[in-house]
């Protein structure tokens, strides 16, 4: 068992290492390097060369990668190119709290909601509540986040003016000031997230309900609630843990658009600014951070599934 956990952790670290290579290669090795990014495409070759030397860009890519990776391991991502006097780490640190808060609120509300809706839809398959829930879910996952966000702004920010339409507070605002600004972005994330997860829960439950063991439980004379709660659900929800993790991890990407829509001061908004500014160290750091979060959440889900599923554990231990 300990072996299995170690194996998972090591695999995750290997994946993260490959991620770092991908990020480094796509931002620094390919044409359009940092010097061009800073000086623009029309800069004279001489000035470019000078800047490259100054930044150490004339050294082999591999050396620079090792140096960058070494820094990343120590949590040092260098100075922002766009904001000369600020360390990348500091820029991120200021905003990470806000994004984590936003994602946490969205996940904490969205997960129970999507489980409940998914179970209702699965149990009442093809009946009115299911058709209603499934249709709304389909629309929810078919509209881009910025559309949902815009509609929410129009409805609750402009027409009714219940909540702030866009955030105008600084990144380090105290929580009580920040919180009202968090509602609409969180609702946007929840809508999209619930749409995805409830569909997965629904089909997983439908599959479990069609299984031989549920038929057997019924033929043992158990009541429907007992069959569903004790026999179908535990087996139906197990495979959705990973799917839920994927969706939660998706939140990390989803916040980019949502934070931009609401001008919410989180790392997603920061990412967009960084890309606009071609602020490479910041983009690299945010990319790596996003991937690290994603991998960590997945690892957590894997370990949780392992812990909850004696069958999976046995199968993996045999291998």
């Amino acid at each position: 068992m300990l072996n299995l956990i170690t194996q998972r952790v090591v695999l995750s670290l290997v994946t993260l290492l490959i991620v770092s290579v991908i990020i480094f290669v796509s931002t620094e090795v390919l044409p359009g390097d940092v010097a061009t990014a800073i000086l623009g495409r029309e800069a004279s070759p001489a000035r470019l060369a000078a800047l490259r030397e100054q930044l150490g860009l004339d050294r082999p890519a591999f050396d620079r990668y090792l140096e960058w990776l070494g820094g990343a391991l120590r949590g040092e991502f260098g100075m922002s190119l766009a904001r000369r006097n600020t360390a990348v780490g500091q820029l991120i640190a200021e905003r990470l709290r806000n994004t984590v808060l936003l994602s946490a609120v969205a996940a904490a509300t969205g997960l129970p909601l999507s489980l409940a809706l998914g179970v209702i839809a699965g149990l009442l398959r093809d009946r009115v509540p299911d058709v209603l829930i499934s249709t709304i879910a389909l629309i929810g996952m078919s509209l881009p986040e910025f559309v949902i966000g815009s509609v929410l702004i129009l409805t609750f920010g402009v027409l009714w003016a219940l909540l702030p339409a866009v955030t105008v507070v600084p990144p380090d605002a105290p929580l009580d000031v920040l919180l009202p600004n968090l509602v609409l972005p969180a609702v946007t994330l929840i809508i999209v997230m619930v749409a995805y997860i409830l569909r997965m829960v629904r089909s997983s439950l439908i599959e479990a309900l069609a299984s031989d063991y549920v038929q057997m439980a019924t033929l043992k004379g158990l009541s429907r609630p007992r069959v569903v709660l004790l026999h179908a659900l535990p087996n139906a929800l197990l495979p959705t843990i990973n799917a839920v993790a994927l969706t939660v991890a998706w939140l990390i990407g989803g916040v980019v658009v949502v934070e931009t829509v609401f001008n919410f001061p989180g790392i997603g908004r920061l990412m967009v600014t960084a890309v606009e500014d071609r602020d490479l160290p910041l983009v690299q750091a945010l990319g790596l951070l996003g991937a690290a979060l994603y991998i960590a959440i997945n690892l957590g889900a894997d370990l949780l599934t392992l812990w909850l599923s004696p069958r999976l554990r046995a199968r993996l231990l045999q291998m």
Partner: protein
Amino acid sequence: MDATIIARYTTDGSSLREVWRTFRHSTAALLGAIILVLHLVVALAAPLLAPHSPTAINPELALAAPSWEHPFGNDRFGRDLLSRVLPGGRIALAISLAGAALSVVLGGFVGVMFGYLGGLADEAAMRIVDALISIPGLLLLLVIVTGLGSGYAVILLAMVLSYAPGVARVARAAAHEFVPRDFITAARARGESPLTVVMRELWPNVLDVLLVEFAMRASWIALAVSGLSFLGFGVNPPTPDWGLMIAENRSMLALAPWGVVFPILAIGSLVVALNLVADGIARALGLDRSR
């Protein structure tokens, strides 16, 4: 023995024909297919259908409400919105279809090949696939756009890099279902090369799964392209594009909602259609979409 077993006895083996038979019994799937075809026709024929130039500025008509002359109204530059909505999906549609096709072919091949080969090569390939999957959606797109600059070719490449790995995972899982079957053992015992086994024996069997993946990924790419445009890294103004139009007209939402409503309906209907088609195919094949 139940209905599905009876169905097995009566199947005629040719997958596409059978899929179509079940598919067309589903109103939702058929509706999706019709909307999708409409979108394709409109995208292709937009220049013929549009009553005005999509880029002609007419300050007198700025933010004009829908009228007979301009059924969708005008934006703040007075451009005719109908003429902008009609071709507004061309780029997103082209990138999403091309991106989904490339993702499915590349990801599908990689997934099936390594799923068949197994062993160390598979382990290594899957680590790279996992790494690409691990950079969440838009982040990877943005990282690539930062490195390579924006442009349709870069966006297409970024979409394939983002979505092909997911397809590879699915294709590999689908291949794993067939690899232990005896017809594969028979091919191996004949001494067929891995490429022959993959292309001749496995590929036709995972094709239906890949078809569902294609429709699904196309809908995701359409969403992602519009997201990129919204953020300002996708289609450049003044080219008409739904995502861009929503971004441009969002600030006038309260004043001139038509500037946003019609592009939203357009992109929403496209993605709904793609999802309905994907669901319809998946149901016809008896596949579960939530892998």
